């Protein structure tokens, strides 16, 4: 490889790049490494490989002062960091907690940034302007081994394989394999108890006949008269489950009040291929122009939380699935494949909104067993 070194004797005056993007190469020519041949026994270089001093001592001295200034600045900044840590209180003892935190963050962060950047800039000045510029070349050794070494390696492998008897004794080999594979599968088995099996739990929610709709936040039941502002949408949850996230992740419902005549929910059944025909949407499931839909988007389960009053569109802010609230939350746009399931509602003896039953189809995203 050393024959390539001859190519590298290029004088500095010729190394004037036409155009330099990024880091310009050091001004000096390429030095070959006299001590870096292939030969194992080559003597160490008689000449120094890299020069000891910068060819421009005046400039180097000036840059040394700049670097020293930066290193001093860094030290001071570190002292400032400690001072800010000790001196600036956080928490809400003196006024606003966010302000106190941001004050402390500003002081600590500025000190840390200056401490780090000053060291970094100082070191770059050190290596680029104080140390002697140098560019050296090193030969690449072939990565492939010599044929003899490869042959010897193959021989070693084959010798070992023969001595291990594995090549001659298939019974030993096969039974060992049969023993190892189950062991490798064992870790998967022991992960079984990470959770219960899904069963049919994704098919139903806690809504049942007579469950009251309570307003999310206040947890108060609601009557149609309470919710008498057409165009409004509120989020309701089944009574008694305000603190149960697993229940709310499926059972959260939005109710929407419309002007008389605006609701045009068709009577819609499922296709009945996989079971009896079930009713999926009905005007009979509304009360006083109030309709209830699952809030869980049928795409990947985000809450479909945005409602446009003028057009009666329900929008999921995650992926913009859009549903038409007038016609049974049918899909107008976006990646959701199905309407938001409608919750059958009515009023109970005390006049509060209650569910007539659970949803008639699974809520939320598609899953394999949904059918």
């Amino acid at each position, binding site marked *: 490889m050393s024959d390539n070194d001859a190519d590298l004797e290029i004088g500095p005056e010729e190394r004037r790049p036409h155009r330099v993007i990024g880091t310009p190469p050091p001004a000096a020519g390429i030095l070959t490494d006299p001590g870096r041949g292939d030969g194992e026994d080559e003597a160490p270089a008689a000449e120094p490989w890299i020069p000891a001093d910068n060819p421009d001592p005046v400039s180097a001295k000036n840059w040394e002062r700049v670097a020293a200034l930066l290193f001093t600045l860094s030290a001071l900044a570190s002292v400032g960091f400690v001072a800010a840590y000790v001196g600036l209180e956080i928490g809400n003892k003196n006024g606003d907690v966010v302000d106190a935190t941001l004050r402390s*963050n500003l002081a600590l962060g500025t000190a840390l940034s200056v401490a780090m950047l000053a060291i*970094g800039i100082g070191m*770059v000045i050190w290596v680029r302007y104080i140390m002697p510029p140098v560019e050296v070349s090193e030969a690449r050794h072939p990565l492939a081994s010599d044929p003899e070494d490869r042959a010897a390696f193959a021989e070693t492998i084959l010798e070992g394989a023969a001595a291990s008897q594995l090549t001659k004794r298939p019974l030993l080999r096969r039974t060992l394999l049969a023993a190892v594979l189950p062991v490798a599968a064992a870790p998967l088995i022991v992960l079984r108890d*990470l959770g219960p099996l899904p069963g049919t739990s994704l098919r139903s929610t806690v809504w049942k006949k007579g469950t009251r709709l309570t307003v999310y936040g206040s947890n108060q039941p609601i009557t149609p008269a309470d919710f008498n502002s057409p165009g409004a949408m509120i989020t309701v949850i089944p009574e008694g489950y305000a603190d149960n996230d697993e229940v709310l992740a499926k059972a959260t419902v939005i109710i929407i009040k419309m002007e008389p005549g605006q609701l045009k929910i068709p009577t819609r059944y499922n296709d009945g291929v996989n079971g009896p025909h079930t009713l999926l949407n009905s005007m009979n499931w509304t009360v006083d122009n109030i309709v209830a839909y699952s809030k869980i988007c049928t795409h990947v389960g985000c809450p479909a939380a945005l409602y446009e009053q003028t057009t009666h569109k329900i929008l999921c802010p995650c992926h913009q699935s859009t549903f038409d609230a007038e016609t049974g939350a049918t899909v107008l746009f976006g990646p959701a494949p199905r309407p938001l399931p409608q919750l059958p509602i009515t009023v109970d003896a005390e006049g509060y909104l209650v569910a007539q039953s659970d949803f008639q189809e699974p809520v939320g*995203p598609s*899953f394999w*067993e949904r*059918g």
Partner: protein
Amino acid sequence: MSTTQHRPLQMPKPLAKQGGELDDRFHAAKGVRTLLRKVFPDHWTFLLGEIALYSFIILILTGIFLTLFFQPSMSEVVYHGSYTKLDGVRMSQAYASTLNISFDVRGGLLMRQIHHWAADVFLAAIICHLLRIFFTGAYRKPRETNWLIGLGMFTLGIFEGFLGYSMPDDLLSGTGVRIAEGVLLGIPVVGTYLSFFLFGGQFPGNEFVARFYIIHVLLIPGLLLALVSAHLFLMVHQKHTQMPGAGRTNNNVVGQPMYPYFAIKTGAFFFFVFGVLALLGTFAQINPIWQVGPYTPVAISAGSQPDFYMGFLEGSLRIFPNWTWDIGGHTIAWNVLIPALVILGFLFTVLGVWPFVERWATGDKSYHNVNQKPRNAPTRTGVGMAGVVFYGIMWLEGANDLIAVHLQIPLYTLTEVARYAVFIGPVIAFWITRRICIGLQRRDAAMLEHGVETGIIQQLPNGGFAEAERPVTPEEAAELIELPPPSVTEVRSDTDENGLPAPARRGLAGRVQARAHDYFVEGISLAPPANGHTNGHGTNGHGTNGHNGHGEVESGERAAIGSGPSGDRADDEA
């Protein structure tokens, strides 16, 4: 460049003694000396990988600090801490402890913000580093393994980041986890089981923060550390590639020695990266978890956006049509499966097999230690830009609601356009990029042949004007010229001397490979100038793979320099 004053260097006695004691035990003098004198080439793009490395170290440092205060538990508490706006609110311990880190631990907010920024910079640097490797062909033999290791780290980094920003259990992070659950449910056959095992039952359950935590702080960082070590070891062992230039060949490395030059430079760069991340953590607020409150499946904040590296998946989920199949009592959610999992798999599969596809197509089995300029591999560069556009459109669509609001474009129009653009855009990008590359090659060829325009106008004796040109210097030529290995450039005629199909083109596989070969190596191969001047088009201007004089058979037919798409090429008419 040898120095004239040569004074012998003397190791101080105590150091010599210590060194001797160490070498007595470790036999290290020779090996360590080799390492100290190792030459590292220099180019600004080589710093991209270092940014990723140092971000990773800073992630570990700040991450250790955060683990000392973070409580990875979903047990419910009622908050009574410093942040009075959430006083009395029911939340998980994870969220409460994140509030405490932010408001009650000095420097806690800074560490959180540096940690989060470092994660974003880590992945951004990985993506830029990956693009650099791709567009300069640095993944070619012998570095295919390191390319695959890099892809593995990229994948792990994406998951690591997702797990990390899911743990505070605030409204935004919980929404991301909910989407992940929706994606898991969409996996055929095992989806519901995977979801129930991950969450310990129905979403959200009481388990996932603790499980994400141990994967985030132990499992994936351990894997990443191992892969980083392997990546760096292979880089040192195989030696770094270098950019084309004077004195740089396939058989050497030109640069600065590790000790002391590279060590100081890279050390400085660590402080730079740390300093810039500290600046970001100080002045650029990121993930202010106290603003949106604890997670509840009931609510969501508008404009929910994941971290940037999940953006392309978010975008593909947004633009993919709502296709599902109900077959035999089972639901196949194509609307989730394809955008979230198939596209992710597709992207990484293409990246993973690319070096081998290129090797198969070009038939190039030689070593490559000098990188290519992107223009000198027009097909690869075109494919790369197609990928960038494909990814970029989906990534932008991940913020389509914000784009719609700020640019006053109707949201649905934007999504509809993206649905087509994601297919058409990459094709256009491929074609344009390829043409630009070939155009740049032509400029290089012209420069080598005619010299560099100086901008000096001279009046000729006959009164005319002409621009003075100077010949290309050897250094400039060294940056322009690239000699592909013979295996790439050998002429592959459609027929042999007897008019029968050439051996390389026999059979279906042969025909496909030959066509791919022609397409990949199409373009100009620039020969070195003779005596500082060039041979002109006679040898280097012609044809797709014929050059250096022995391309005459074909160069007559494929006269155009870097002729267009294969459809209008002479070999199709033959």
